[in-house]
């Protein structure tokens, strides 16, 4: 496998805490990859309009870039990047007419017909490393940490690009491999509130409140995510959500890659916990997984 890494814009800015530990972990696990040197925005939201091919240009161009750079597989961490790239790839593979239209439109690029495989980081861990080997590599098992995994929408919808079938529970396998306890969590595959948080804040907050309430009911110590938008709605905005809805308790949020970094015993600075807010760091200090808070 010639593995390329497609970062996505947000991981290079606001969500550095999703990226840095993930890449350090790949190095640590001996997975060879190269970060794409040339790429553009993934498109962020997959366009559902059947005749709206212009919004497929951005993801397909990235797949062309991956192929140009000699990759047969491209891994992404952000749920939304995964979703747009995987769905565009599927469309190119299956729809000859649209593939032809796209190739003609992008006549300055080599033709593309879906040669590159798009995988999410969690799938890569499961399929290339395996939970058993990951468990053996963990040096700081997260014992006694009850973790609620939040899949959100775009990792598991639609079914044909889902990283996991409903009954497979890839996140649960990941959490267990880190030595933590997965919390059964009824809102794991709900919507975080998405862009509604800006357009219709009240509806957005109601959505987020449902997720936090379910996390509270599962007695989770922490909520883990793989999407910067979910993190914004459930993490950054959580204090507002909890204030807005009675009876909710705050629950620290992490990107799943940060807990991976901690469990592998990577330099805590690589986990960029400074971007998570104090509650997340205090939890890890209380549990004695890290020594001191990052600043």
């Amino acid at each position, binding site marked *: 496998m010639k593995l390329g890494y497609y*970062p*996505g*814009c947000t991981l*290079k*800015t606001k969500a550095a805490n999703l990226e840095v530990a993930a890449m350090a972990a790949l190095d640590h696990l001996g997975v060879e990859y190269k970060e794409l040197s*040339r*790429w*553009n*925005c993934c*498109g962020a939201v997959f366009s559902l309009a059947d005749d709206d091919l*212009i*919004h497929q*240009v*951005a993801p397909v*161009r990235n797949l062309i870039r991956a192929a140009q750079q000699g990759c047969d597989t491209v891994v992404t961490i952000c749920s939304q990047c995964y979703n747009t790239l995987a769905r565009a790839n599927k469309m190119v593979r299956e729809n000859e007419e649209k593939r032809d239209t796209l190739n003609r*439109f*992008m006549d*300055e690029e080599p033709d593309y017909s879906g040669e590159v495989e798009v995988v999410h980081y969690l799938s890569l861990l499961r399929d290339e490393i395996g939970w058993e080997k990951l468990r053996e590599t963990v040096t700081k098992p997260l014992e006694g940490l009850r973790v609620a995994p939040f899949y959100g929408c775009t990792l598991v919808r639609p079914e044909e690009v889902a990283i996991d079938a409903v009954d497979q529970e890839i996140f649960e396998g990941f959490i267990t491999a880190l030595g933590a306890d997965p919390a059964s969590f009824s809102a794991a595959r709900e919507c975080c509130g998405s862009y509604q948080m800006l357009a219709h804040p009240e509806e957005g907050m109601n959505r987020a409140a449902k997720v936090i309430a379910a996390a509270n009911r599962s007695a989770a110590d922490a909520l883990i995510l793989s999407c910067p938008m979910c993190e914004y709605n459930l993490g950054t905005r959580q204090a507002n959500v909890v204030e807005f809805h009675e009876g909710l308790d705050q629950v620290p949020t992490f990107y799943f890659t940060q807990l991976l970094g901690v469990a592998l015993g990577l330099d805590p600075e690589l986990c960029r916990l400074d971007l998570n807010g104090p509650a997340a760091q205090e939890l890890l200090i209380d549990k004695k997984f890290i020594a001191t808070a990052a600043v």
Partner: protein
Amino acid sequence: MDTATLTEEVAAKTIPIYIMGKRYEVPETLTIMKAMEHSGYQYIRGCGCRGGICGACATVYRRAGDYKIYTGLACQTVVEPEMYLTQIPFYPANRASYDYESSQPTAETIYQLYPELFRCVACNACTKVCPMDVEVLDYISALKRGDVTAAAEISFDCIQCGLCASRCMGEMAQYHMAQVARRLQGGKIAPKAEHLEKMCGDIDAGTFTDVIEAAKVMTEDELKKVYTEREMEPHMGADEWTPASNHGLA
């Protein structure tokens, strides 16, 4: 040979071109700019350096039987038979004003000035139309991911002709965004050039004032003499060669 006596055999062959839809016969060796002048157009604006740098003479053309749009600078591009062309010396584009001194050297500065940046769909029409072969989409993509330095470097050859903006379906003014990026990079991100700062200090302190004042009152012949007799580094000089006088510099 006096050009006035050129015989027909050695004069350049003429070819038909279409300027704003009107047919003209022009010598095939001319640039678009020269061909327009040959055809009777007089440049008052839309023509700057004539050296491919100022960005004033961006030209759009099509070739006979070809649906593609081609671009070039009128002062640099040689005419082709049957080309249909027009110059686009100026393209209206939103240019945000901002206070440089108080601007943070981050992509957020550009996001606030040009939120339309996020309308980019990666169609790449900007790159295709750029007469300087700047990878416009790549610097726009760099800005979207917060990399001001990369945007400044990728856009370095931009001459601000505005053709990218003319083709953008997101109605962006890419080149103005890139200019903010280069200004932030040059003044606030790149390491300071200490030797430049020292030289500016030397100039302010009057180190060169006497030399300049003396030159100002020289006759043309005296200036030429000083120039031709100036000390030059020998072609095969040793590595450690230095000029005998650095005009007072330490």
